[in-house]
């Protein structure tokens, strides 16, 4: 299936990646090429096949709902691009 420029623009927006207008055409071609190659999956009969969501055949393990570690803001904030005291500084979220 061909992916057009408008779809690339929308998907890039959903993925929060700024793609300049002049690159959209090239990207549309590349993504269309990949998706066209993927279309061959349509040949496989998958009626009644259970989707495989995990490679592990076991139920998800459970643990007690308790705090195991934490309480160290220095560790948490040590890689922050910008901080003020024990807080991350981020752009204004609520106008």
């Amino acid at each position, binding site marked *: 299936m061909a*992916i057009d420029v408008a779809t690339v623009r929308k998907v890039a927006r959903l*993925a929060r990646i700024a793609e300049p207008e002049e690159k959209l055409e090239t990207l549309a071609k590349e993504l269309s090429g*990949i998706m066209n190659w993927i*279309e061959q*999956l349509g040949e496989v009969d998958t009626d009644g096949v259970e989707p495989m969501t995990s490679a592990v055949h076991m139920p998800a393990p459970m643990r007690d709902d308790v705090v195991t570690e934490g309480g160290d803001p220095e560790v948490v904030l040590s890689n922050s691009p910008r901080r003020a005291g024990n807080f991350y500084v981020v752009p204004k979220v609520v106008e």
Partner: protein
Amino acid sequence: MSDLTSLTLKIALDGLAAKSFSSVELTQAHVEAVEAARSLNAFVLETPEQAIEMAKASDARRASGSAGRLDGAPLGIKDLFCTKGVRSTAGSRIIGEFKPTYESTVTANLWRDGAVMLGKLNMDEFAMGSSNETSAWGPVVNPWRTAGGNARLTPGGSSGGSASAVAAELCLGATATDTGGSIRQPASFTGTVGIKPTYGRCSRWGIVAFASSLDQAGPMARTVEDAAILLTSMAGHDPKDSTSLPVETPDFASFVGKSVKGLRIGVPKEYRVDGMPAEIDALWEQGIAWLKDAGCEIVEVSLPHTKYALPAYYIVAPAEASSNLARYDGMRYGLRVDGSNLTDTYEKSRAEGFGAEVKRRILIGTYVLSAGYYDAYYLKALKVRRRIADDFEQAFGKVDALLTPTAPSAAFALGDRSDDPVAMYLNDIFTVTVNLAGLPGMSVPAGLDASGLPLGLQLIGRALDEGTLFSLGSALEKAADFRARPQKWW
């Protein structure tokens, strides 16, 4: 003491135990080899001081009689593994100068057993690539060259730094990861041994995530026995990874050299693909003959959905990646590029931080998961994935392991395939099925092509049956008697 770098891990450990040399001597020799090999671009961060400190501590442990399984052995660590206080970038600009405040479980297991870290190894960005050319740090160069040629070849990817460093004798072994072939294809391209264990064998905790239902860590080494020793340390149940299997880790080295007489080996006819070089087909035939000579019974099997594995993978892996990589938003760590508002900051940070291939996969993943396409693409791919896993289950009703080529070509020149994404994806045609089914797969160097480049054969086993792969791998290794090493030019 430059001879110390050409030892196998096993012989080096024996030498340390016999006090023939110290870990400091062994480590120093490797530190010098790493420094002298910068033209390979295998390391993105060298940690020589830390290495010598770790080696000194190892020598002290050995003197006091408390040495571990890997005590004193210098290793390289793929930059996808978070290492406490040591920059870990996953080959991406978006992670920037990130210094983890924690240690991945796999590397913690190696340090528990006494290993020494030489530094962090180059890789394709977020492990997305088959030639190491998507790395923000530039491509790794394969120490191998064609006979008489001097073109720079790819070591494969995504674990290209690991492969190149092991092949060039810069470390005794390395950690690597494999989501679609990222251990086995580089092993094949560099004449090294690599194993992707069963999904769940090694904890994924602290490994930067690409596609969580496919990612699995494993070792790269110069011999099957060395890979077995490393995997025994790396593996083990970890409550911090909910998909880590609660099973005992056997001593994998105990399977090396064991008789393979009477084992039934499947040869999947669908792996004979159009356009595969005749040499690879011939090497496969040779591998079949070697295993027959070792007493195996050869059985032709069918894995009918093989050709659909790559297209299914290129839905499943990008879908998971688009979700996993949503966390890189420039707020808590890594690169932040200021924009006019919050969304603009996200979009600019991600546009500047991610490379072209990673962006492509995020876009594909976002597309196939978006409203209206989820059933047609993502759900369809998960059903095809089940079909592929069922193919293997049927085959393993008849055979104990499978033998295939590892990759459809030998190492190619850097730049050769970088402008056609689908051509690059085809590198993983023989390896990706194994990730989708969660099975163990190993690449063993088996011969050289006409231009003098190494080629590998792949063994695929039942879930949790790495032991049989180590026995078969060592049988192949013995029969192939692969001793070729790249001629030093770097």
